[in-house]
C-alpha cells in the first residue's frame, strides 16, 4: 500500500533529519497515532506530513508528543503491585541500598506508585530510583508530580486493591482541580531522558520496570531493549513487564512470578 511506503519514508526522514528513531516501532499503533495526528491537524497525506515536519522542527515536536506519549495510571494492575509487595519487597530488604530503573515512565504515575509502596514498606530511604522517558513534556509532568484531581478516584481504588491500607490523600495536597504529590516522595527519584532504542546502559540496577512500553516496539526493537535490560541488571536482578507482555528472547531471563510478569536475570 502506498500509505505504508509513505510511513516508512516519513520515519526514515525523521531519523535522518532529527535522530529520533521510530523505525522499529510496532506498525499498527504508530500508523494509527500518525493518522490521528494528521486528522487533528487536517493533513491530507503522510507525504504532506513528512514535508511539514522535515522543514519545521516545531511541527516535529508536536508529532513527537503524539507518537511517544503513553497513558498511565496510579497503581495500574493492582495485582502486580500486590505481588511486588509480597515477593520483591522481601528481597529488597536484604540490600542496604538498591537501584530501581523505571524505563518509559511517561508522566510518572507509576513511579509515584512505586515510591509510595516503598515508603510504606520502610524501604524508600534505601531506594535510588531512576525514571526515564524520551518525551520531555511527560518528564516535566512527572518531575512536578502534579496531576488532575479527576484521576484520583480510580487511583485510590487501585491503591487499595493493590494492598495499600493508608489514607491515600495523605500523600498529596489538593488545590483547585489538581493534586500534587508530597515532594518528599521524590527525594530519591531522578527523572531523566533516555532512549531505549539508541542509548547505552547507564547504571546497574536490582530491579527494572518496563511496563506497557515495549507493546509499542516491534520484535527487533523489543529484543534490543531486552538485551539492554539484561546488561543493566545486577546478577539475579528482576525485570517487570506489563500484564500481557512476556520476555522475548527468553534466553536472558527466567520466570520469577509468571502471573505478575516478573522475570529474573540469568547469566
Amino acid at each position, binding site marked *: 500500500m502506498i500509505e505504508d511506503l509513505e510511513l516508512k519514508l516519513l520515519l526514515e526522514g525523521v531519523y535522518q533529519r532529527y535522530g529520533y528513531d521510530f523505525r522499529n516501532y*510496532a*506498525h*499498527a499503533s504508530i500508523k494509527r497515532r500518525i493518522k490521528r495526528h494528521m486528522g487533528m491537524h487536517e493533513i491530507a497525506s503522510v507525504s504532506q506530513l513528512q514535508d511539514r515536519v522535515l522543514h519545521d522542527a516545531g511541527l516535529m515536536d508536536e508529532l513527537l508528543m503524539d507518537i511517544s506519549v503513553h497513558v498511565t495510571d496510579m497503581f495500574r494492575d493492582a495485582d502486580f503491585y500486590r505481588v511486588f509487595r509480597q515477593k520483591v519487597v522481601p528481597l529488597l530488604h536484604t540490600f542496604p541500598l538498591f537501584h530501581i530503573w523505571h524505563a518509559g515512565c511517561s508522566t510518572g504515575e507509576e513511579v509515584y506508585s512505586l515510591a509510595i509502596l516503598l515508603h510504606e514498606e520502610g524501604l524508600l530511604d534505601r531506594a535510588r530510583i531512576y525514571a526515564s522517558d524520551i518525551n520531555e513534556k511527560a518528564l516535566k509532568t512527572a518531575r512536578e508530580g502534579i496531576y488532575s484531581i479527576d484521576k484520583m478516584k480510580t487511583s485510590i481504588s487501585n491503591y487499595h486493591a493493590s494492598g495499600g491500607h493508608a489514607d491515600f490523600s495523605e500523600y498529596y495536597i489538593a488545590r483547585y482541580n489538581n493534586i500534587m504529590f508530597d515532594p518528599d516522595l521524590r527525594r530519591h527519584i531522578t527523572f531523566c531522558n533516555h532512549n531505549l532504542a539508541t542509548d547505552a546502559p547507564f547504571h546497574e540496577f536490582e530491579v527494572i520496570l518496563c511496563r506497557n512500553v515495549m507493546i509499542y516496539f516491534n520484535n527487533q526493537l*523489543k529484543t534490543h531493549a531486552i538485551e539492554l535490560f539484561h546488561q543493566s541488571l545486577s546478577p539475579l536482578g528482576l525485570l517487570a513487564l506489563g500484564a*500481557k507482555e512476556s520476555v522475548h528472547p527468553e534466553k536472558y531471563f527466567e520466570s520469577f512470578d509468571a502471573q505478575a510478569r516478573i522475570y529474573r536475570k540469568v547469566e
Partner: protein
Amino acid sequence: MPTAENHTDIRAMVIGISAGGVQVLSKIMPQLPEKTPFPIFLVEHTKASGKHYLCDILNEVCALPVCEAEDKMRIEPGHVYLAPPDYHLLIESSDSIALSMDNPVHYCRPSIDMLFESAADVFRSHVLGIVCTGMGRDGADGLLEIHQAGGVCAVEDPATAEYPFMPQAALASVPDAQRISPDKFGLWLASVVISI
C-alpha cells in the same frame, strides 16, 4: 441463494460485542466449524474481572481454541483471540497481534473500532466483520473501514438483539451490512465464506 460469486476468500474474522454479549457468543461460537481456516478476533466490552471467565466459558462451547491475546502473539488459523481487559487489540501483521494502551475510543478499551480498523488495514477485502448487541456506537466506524476495504460486513439483526444500539449505529454507517440472526450464524457463514 448463495452462488459461487458470493463466496469470499476470508482470512480473518473480527467480532465486536458489548452488553448482552455472553449469551450471543454462547450461541454463535458453537456454530464455528472445527476446520475454520482463519483466525477470529473478538472484542467484548466487559469489566476487567469478567474476562477470564469468558475465555473459560467460550472454550467449553467452541470447537476452536479460545485464548486471551498477548502482545506480539503469533496468529494461528482456527484460533480465537479475545482482547484482554483494558488493552486495545490490534492486528500487527497477518501473523501477529499487538496490544495498545492508547486512550479509550468511545469510552471503550478494548475498542471494537480499533480492532476492525487494524484488521481492514492488514487483511483488506479478506476480512469479515460483525457488530453485535451493545450500547453505544463502538464498531460503527470500524465496520465502515472494513466496508471501504472491500471486506464482508454484518451486524446482529437489531430487530432481535438484546441491545440493538450498536448494530443500529453500524447499519447507519454501512447500510449494506448483512443482518444476521445468531441462530442462523453458521448457515450464513457457510454461504459467504469460500472454504467452510
